[in-house]
């Protein structure tokens, strides 16, 4: 019965203060939704367990140099062969190598994402084929028959789910390969694999270190061991290898284990982004808790007198607690339901966005954006506990016997000193946090925007880009590959609607998958005490005529010519940034440099690193992602394709400049490919601008997320500041009446309340700005932040927050003075 009465009172209380109740629910649900959303995104994309049996124990093994500062690599195949026999904390290990393969079938060639894998990959992941068989140990032998497994999706899409696909032979990279099985739907281990091919023993068990063969590792942790245990082992093993093999395992090369989802983030050098996202997430959550705390405190303070009356009437303490808990429970439950519903909607939308745009339907197989169990539990719990803790303050105050003070008419409308102090602290905290989140978000957003508008240094209009992939079996030597690229460019340029063609190892704006395109350079005659002293830059191989085709402007010197052959003097063209860094205030043309030996490429010999003469300096070209996580300011060095030494990739990027529409140009591209060699694949055909936009999409999306976080935090802070000030003013309605009775004019009242309400905001702003400066300095270590817009952001944000505080005070004050003084005096 008592409970029923209490529930009735609570519902009446919520209805009576419906605006404040709705405000609390709104702030709480929005904050919850955002926190759950960002937390779940992080959890699903970075920390999720693989959706496989014992997925939480399956880990990736990778390598890094210079403690991660100089680049991240796969594991040297020989090192992996030896270390896998030593590690004790895992039950099994295996190796794989990811690549893209041309597959020719029914006279069509298309690209598949392939995984060369060891036979035990499928056993370790406890997966059986839906058709045919898995790999067996013999399949990994060097001389074994060439076989392959299809993913379920490829089987359905390209083979119509035909069961007779088994034993069909396809040309994979120019070699006859037999299909022996089809994997189950959704299986794409180790990432987004469409076909699996056996990794040969020559790759699994090379005789020497630094043979150029690298693998990714996978392992199953023993049940009683953690990732940390494995990493301790790997750390010791790496250190011993560095000691035992100083010629090859130098420069802090070490191996480490991590989850497969996390390995993607580390590999693509987005850890800074991740850290920022995590910090923003924590800040938003903190802001949400403070906001809700402040609103609830206001609500409870408003009810102090009611609690005092109840105590005076003999209400036991527990009844008050029950009342408050019930009220909090109802408010929190509604907010949690709305917050979770909003988060689910946002996650579904984001997953579709990621699948359709970001990953181009090649998402990692573990991608499943859903609310994690932790999110369901901890975030609502933390909010509820905060709310409860704050609610208890006025009850304790009333129960301590101070109710007589609260019941005195003379003190009505005034907050208790302690409660007012807590409220002030909360308002100050939320202003500081809002400024911090908003400034940080806007700095990142504006930096992203400025970076997205960067001049790539090449012409992108009326240009389409594509990737050419040569089948390895047919094109085994550098000469064969060069000849094909030369013929391809010539034949294309012969077409009526094609103006020019560039063929380069890397196009501007391409995002680096790893550090392999960035290399240190050594100047002739220079002595380097530390390997880190060498200047790093992007290395790009270019077909003769490509720089002219792309409109790269020369500042001095000449373009590559047909006379730059493997036998002639080695030449290089460098960008202005690199020239300035290599030879500041000097003329670079005629000087000599060479590629520096790098820890991951210790197999390189002097033959691979001949001295090259600088024949030209160009205006800057961004051969990297301009958002530039760690690599933004590196210059570029162009080396003629004909003189390449260490690069043996079978892929080449082309930019085709055309007249008229893009469709005929695409048609010509395909015709030339078919005419030259139908087994050659041409993929990712798109306009240059689309390619640039697509490469910046991740940054753009994250930038927008940051902006949303920032604006939402501003909204939360605005609502909360408004809610608190509005309530304070409502409580002071009687005081307003007194002041007006004493002769205060409307402007006297407005000025007084705006001044007293914004003074805390004014005091908090400098702290918020200082925190933002410190935080941005931290972020700048991980993310490229453009300084140009910072000053504007640092001035604008505090002003906006101040204006919001003034408006928040102005609106309720104006509403309050609408009452006649006699009505205001009757307010209690």
């Amino acid at each position, binding site marked *: 019965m008592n409970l029923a009465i209490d529930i009735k009172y609570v519902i009446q209380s919520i209805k009576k203060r419906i605006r404040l109740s709705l405000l609390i629910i709104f702030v709480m649900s929005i904050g919850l939704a955002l926190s759950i959303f960002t937390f779940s995104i992080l959890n699903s994309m970075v920390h999720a367990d693989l959706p496989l049996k014992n997925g939480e124990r399956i880990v990736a093994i990778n390598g890094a140099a210079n403690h991660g500062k100089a680049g991240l690599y796969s594991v040297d195949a020989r090192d992996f062969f030896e270390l896998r026999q030593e590690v004790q904390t895992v039950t099994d290990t295996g190796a794989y190598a990811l690549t893209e393969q041309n597959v020719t079938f029914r006279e069509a060639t298309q690209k598949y994402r392939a995984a060369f894998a060891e036979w035990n990959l499928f056993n370790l992941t406890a997966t059986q084929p839906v058709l045919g068989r898995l790999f067996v140990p013999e399949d990994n032998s060097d001389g074994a028959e060439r076989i392959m497994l299809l993913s379920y999706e490829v089987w359905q899409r390209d083979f119509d789910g035909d069961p007779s696909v088994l034993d069909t032979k396809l040309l994979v990279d120019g070699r006859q390969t037999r299909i022996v099985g089809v994997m189950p739907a959704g299986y794409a281990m180790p990432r987004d694999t469409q076909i699996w091919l056996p990794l040969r023993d020559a790759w699994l068990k090379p005789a020497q270190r630094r043979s150029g063969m690298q693998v990714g590792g996978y392992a199953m942790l023993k049940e009683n061991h953690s990732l940390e245990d494995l990493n301790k082992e790997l750390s010791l093993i790496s250190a011993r290898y560095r000691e035992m093999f100083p010629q090859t395992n130098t420069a802090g090369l070490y191996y480490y284990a991590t989850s497969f989802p996390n390995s993607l983030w580390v590999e693509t050098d987005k850890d800074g982004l991740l850290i920022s996202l995590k910090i923003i997430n924590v800040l938003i959550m903190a802001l949400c808790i403070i906001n809700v705390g402040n609103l609830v405190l206001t609500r409870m303070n408003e009810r102090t007198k009611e609690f005092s009356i109840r105590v005076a009437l003999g209400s036991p303490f527990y009844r008050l607690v029950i009342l408050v808990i019930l009220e909090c429970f109802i408010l929190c439950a509604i907010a949690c339901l709305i917050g979770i519903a909003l988060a689910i909607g946002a996650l579904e939308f984001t997953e579709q966005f990621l699948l359709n745009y970001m990953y181009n339907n090649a998402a990692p197989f573990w991608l499943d954006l859903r609310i994690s169990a932790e999110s369901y539990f901890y975030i609502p719990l933390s909010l509820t506990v905060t709310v409860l803790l704050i609610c208890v303050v006025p009850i304790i105050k009333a129960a301590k016997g101070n109710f007589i*003070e609260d019941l*005195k*008419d*003379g*003190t009505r*409308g*005034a907050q208790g000193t302690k409660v007012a102090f807590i409220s002030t602290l909360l308002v100050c905290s939320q202003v500081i946090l809002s400024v911090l989140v908003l400034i940080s978000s806007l700095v990142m957003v504006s930096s992203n925007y400025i970076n997205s508008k960067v001049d790539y240094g090449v012409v992108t209009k009326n240009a389409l880009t594509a990737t050419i992939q040569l089948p390895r079996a047919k094109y085994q030597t550098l000469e064969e590959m060069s000849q094909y690229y030369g013929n391809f460019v010539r034949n294309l340029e012969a077409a009526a609607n094609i103006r020019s063609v560039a063929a380069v190892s890397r196009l501007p704006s391409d995002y680096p998958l790893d550090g392999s395109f960035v290399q240190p350079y050594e100047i002739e005659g220079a002595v380097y005490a530390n390997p880190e002293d060498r200047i790093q830059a992007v290395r790009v191989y270019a077909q003769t005529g490509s720089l002219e085709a792309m409109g790269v402007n020369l500042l001095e010197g000449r373009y590559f010519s047909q006379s730059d052959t493997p036998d002639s003097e080695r030449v290089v063209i460098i960008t202005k940034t690199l020239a300035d860094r290599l030879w500041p205030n000097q003329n670079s043309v005629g000087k000599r440099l060479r590629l520096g030996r790098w820890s991951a490429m210790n197999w390189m010999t002097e033959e691979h690193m001949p001295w090259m003469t600088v024949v030209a300096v160009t205006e800057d070209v961004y051969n990297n992602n301009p958002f530039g996580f760690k690599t933004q300011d590196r210059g570029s060095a162009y080396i003629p394709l004909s003189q390449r030494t260490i690069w043996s990739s079978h892929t080449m990027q082309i930019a085709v400049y055309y007249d008229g529409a893009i469709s005929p140009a695409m048609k010509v591209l395909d015709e030339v490919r078919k005419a030259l060699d139908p087994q050659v694949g041409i993929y990712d055909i798109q306009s240059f601008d689309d390619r640039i936009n697509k490469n910046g999409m991740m940054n753009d999306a994250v930038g927008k997320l940051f902006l949303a976080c920032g604006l939402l935090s501003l909204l939360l802070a605005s609502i909360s500041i408004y809610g608190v000030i509005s309530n304070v003013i409502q409580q002071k309605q*009687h*005081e307003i*009446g*007194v*002041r*007006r*009775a*004493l*002769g*205060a*004019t*409307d*402007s*006297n009242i407005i000025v007084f309340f705006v001044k007293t309400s914004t003074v805390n905001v004014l005091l908090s702003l400098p702290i918020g700005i200082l925190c933002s400066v410190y935080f941005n300095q931290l972020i700048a270590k991980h993310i490229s932040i453009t300084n140009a817009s910072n000053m504007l952001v640092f001035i604008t944000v505090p002003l906006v927050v101040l204006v919001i505080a003034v408006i928040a005070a102005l609106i309720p004050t104006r509403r309050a003075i609408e009452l*006649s*003084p*006699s*009505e205001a*005096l009757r307010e209690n």
Partner: protein
Amino acid sequence: MNNTNVITLSNITKIYQTEEVETLALDNINIKIDAGEYVSIVGLSGCGKSTLLSILGLLDKPTDGQYLLNGRDVSDLSRNHQANIRNEMIGFVFQSFNLISDLTVEENIELPLTYRNHLTKSQRADMVKSALLKVNMEHRAKHLPSQLSGGQQQRIAIARAIAGSPKIILADEPTGNLDSQNALAIVELLDKLNKQGTTICVVTHDPRSVQGATRQIRLHDGKVCEDVASLKSAVA
């Protein structure tokens, strides 16, 4: 028009309109109060005393009728103009004191003076000191209202009301929350102020407050049912 009339109410009507009910609080009130009068307005609870005082103090507007204050029609003045008149001409004393709890005694007294832009800080300080002396509360200047007794709080409220030397003091049940000793002190204080030339209107149903009054207006159901010189006046 009689030049000594400080307050002239002609056919004042006040109707409170809510969603369902229309309440006639004042019904065609006609009252003239001369400068220096000490008027007590009495009547049963709900008869319209406080409403009348609110209209007299420009805290509320009549629904109908004319209000001349010092010979000037104040019914339709702007809000700010009315505020200025309240500040310069009228002092209020409330039953519940209405001191602002966050402000000290002297800050409370200084408050209405801060709305007069022409006063300097030192002028205000002098006026506060003088008002405190008049109510014998100068030793409590730095205290907060919550540190004072009810009687002391009411004296501070009177000090606040007289600090700006208003022509009229309007008091709403000034002794309603006080014991007899404190109530007597307040009555004496008001009497003293009246003797110094201040027009005083007291709304009350406490016979003690009526003692000093020279005229008594009795309201019943929003109408003046009696308007007589008081016993004290008659004796005088």
